[in-house]
């Protein structure tokens, strides 16, 4: 598994040392609040309603068990014993004391973890498919490329004070688990006719109040030219992005203002100057080294005529929690952190340690996090899946809800976030209470429900089968419902159902929507396909009729 070397760790410590000095100056009144805000955000620190939130990066969603234990220790030592796994390969702590931050970050740097650029107006942590390297028909494992790009934009002197945040994803698989077209910049790894690798680039996607699917800006950037290309995109954004209108800061507004073709031309003109600069070529030796570091640690396994245990509960859990692995003899196993009655993505320090022990025992001491706020064991031997299930079951972690509608994705909402217009987590819990029959849930199948407590869209409601957006009207909480958003095959923003619905009635509306789907679906048809066939009218009629 890839790990930071001595230089990388020294860099993390330098970063913490500097931030600690800035924090001390702020507390002593020797750094004004506005500048400190900009500085603390780029170190992952939010100052929230009740306390301070720290967002720690989990690059590409990969964790080793030593890191997971360190995250558990941080939860105990500096927080209230739990952490919140987010949809974007981060973990957040909600109850951090300011003077403790530097010590916390130092503890994390010892295991190669950090909070650098997890927030603020700079290049954020880059997301990759959590199943990178494990999927059969992948074009290429995206992670070595992500890592080279991440390093390049780590405290980049030219691009650290952008008009707004800048989020990137790189996908190397056929299906798009990263939702790259809702990122400021998404790269898809592709092969050209000559069989050479490169990137198709999509710029200007994003959710929020003005959701936009990022258009293709370049069909093929050769691998070795990717850094100069990205520099050109960022330079155009840095120099020409809106800074005057707070609602127009993201790059999507620049792309929209000029149109995709004109924007592509602007980037291309700048790129002509950097393309052939030998200093800006990707370091192919380093890439080869990273490919080795990220290579899968397991070899194909001959399990003879192994037959898995037959057990009804085990089989139910297996349906939605175990995926095929590229390497013979192995499975990918999902561990659902969404327990009924708890906040989605929350894990206690005890659970983290327990999961770390299990990953040592069953998964080569490695795990991954996903955008549905789960943990994944990437290397479980097929003949050990049953034993793992039994261990998970003992600890209440074999929830069979993953992949069903009861597995709701929700942002922190009004319970933790001072930007919220409405609660998220309690609605998720009400949905789980309403749909508590396992047979029914399996009959309904894999419908995604995502909830955001305000237009910032942290819960990714636009790209869910059923999306809920919290609003406030006359001091009352309402929810705008959107239907049939998707990203896997193509990227589509969910369609608005109609006027927003009061909090007390929103779970009824969800039930209505599910029922329309059940009444109308054809054999094996998923929600998005049924929606495409029957349109929005029957849903509208049932909910508002």
């Amino acid at each position, binding site marked *: 598994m890839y790990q930071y070397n001595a*230089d*990388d760790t*020294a*860099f993390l410590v*330098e*970063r913490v*040392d*500097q931030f600690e*000095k*800035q924090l001390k*100056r702020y507390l*002593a009144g*020797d*750094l004004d609040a*506005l*500048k400190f805000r*900009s*500085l603390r955000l780029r170190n992952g620190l939010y100052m929230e309603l009740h306390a301070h939130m720290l967002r720690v990066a989990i690059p590409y969603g990969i964790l080793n068990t030593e890191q997971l234990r360190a995250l558990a220790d941080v939860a105990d030592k500096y927080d209230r014993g739990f952490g919140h796994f987010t949809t974007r390969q981060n973990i957040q702590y909600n109850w951090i004391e300011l003077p403790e931050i530097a010590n916390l970050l130092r503890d994390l740097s010892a295991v190669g973890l950090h909070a650098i650029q997890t927030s603020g*107006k700079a290049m954020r942590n880059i997301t990759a498919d959590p199943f990178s390297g494990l999927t059969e028909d992948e074009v290429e494992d995206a992670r070595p490329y992500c890592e080279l790009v991440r*390093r*390049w*934009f*780590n*405290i*980049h*002197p*030219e*691009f*650290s*004070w*952008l008009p707004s945040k800048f989020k990137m994803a790189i996908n190397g698989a056929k299906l798009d688990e990263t939702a790259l077209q809702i990122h400021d910049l998404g790269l898809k790894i592709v092969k050209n006719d000559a069989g050479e690798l490169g990137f198709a680039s999509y710029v200007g996607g994003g959710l929020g109040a003005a959701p936009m699917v990022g258009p293709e800006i370049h069909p093929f950037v050769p691998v070795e030219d990717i850094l100069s290309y990205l520099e050109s995109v960022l*330079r155009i954004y*840095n*120099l020409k992005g809106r*800074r005057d209108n707070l609602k127009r800061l993201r790059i999507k507004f620049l792309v929209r203002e000029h149109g995709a073709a004109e924007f592509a031309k602007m980037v291309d003109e700048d790129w002509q*100057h950097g393309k052939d600069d030998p*200093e*800006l070529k990707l*370091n192919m030796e*380093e890439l080869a080294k990273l490919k080795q570091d990220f290579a899968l640690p397991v070899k194909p396994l001959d399990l003879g005529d192994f037959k898995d245990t037959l057990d009804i509960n085990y089989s139910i859990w297996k349906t939605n929690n175990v995926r095929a692995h590229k390497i013979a003899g192995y499975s990918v196993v999902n561990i659902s952190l969404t327990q009924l009655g708890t906040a989605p993505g929350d894990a206690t320090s005890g659970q983290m340690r327990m999961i770390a022990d299990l990953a040592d025992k069953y998964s080569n001491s490695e795990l991954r996090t996903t955008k549905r706020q789960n943990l994944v064991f990437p290397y479980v031997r097929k003949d050990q899946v049953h034993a793992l299930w039994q261990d998970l079951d003992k600890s209440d972690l074999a929830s069979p809800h993953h992949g069903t509608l009861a597995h709701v994705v929700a942002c922190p909402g009004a319970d933790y976030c001072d930007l919220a217009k409405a609660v998220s987590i309690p609605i998720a819990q009400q949905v789980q209470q309403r749909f508590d029959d396992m047979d029914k849930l399996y009959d309904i199948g894999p419908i995604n429900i995502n909830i955001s407590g305000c237009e910032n869209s942290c819960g990714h409601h636009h790209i869910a089968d059923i999306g809920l957006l919290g609003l406030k009207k006359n001091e009352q909480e309402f929810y705008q419902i959107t239907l049939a958003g998707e990203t896997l095959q193509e990227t589509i923003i969910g369609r608005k159902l109609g006027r927003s619905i009061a909090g007390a009635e929103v779970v009824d509306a969800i039930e209505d929507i599910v029922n329309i789907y059940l009444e109308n679906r054809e054999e094996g048809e998923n929600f998005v396909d049924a929606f495409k066939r029957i349109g929005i009218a029957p849903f509208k009629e049932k909910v508002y009729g």
Partner: protein
Amino acid sequence: MVEDSEIISVVNEQGKVIELLSVNEWVANVDSGVKSGKGVVVTPADDVGLLQESLHKIPLIALDFVSFDDGRGYSQATLIRKRWSYSGEIRGINAHLDQLQFMLRSGVNTYDLQEQYQGSNEHDYTHGFSICYQVAANNADMKEKF
């Protein structure tokens, strides 16, 4: 709209007072500007491309970092120093302590701070990082890792 900088002159490295013209003033009066030894002050909204043709005749370029979060000056400095190989003095005016290393790496070589702070050591912010992960106009004293 481009707003003019409030700063109209600086004292250069050699201790000489250099009066500053705006980008538009300079471009309209290159010859007289050169003759009278005037420099140019660049605000964040200025298009530095306008200076390219007469760049090497300018004795000093002052980049105004007037607002902490407005990072256009870093791209302007990179273009002037790295892409167009300007070898004269680039002065960061209204510079910010916490951004000094970013600014110096982008090609600024002298600076005037907007605000002084009592309890802090400038060196911590000009040399806070000893390791860097990317090419820049000036990576002096840093271990390059790319």
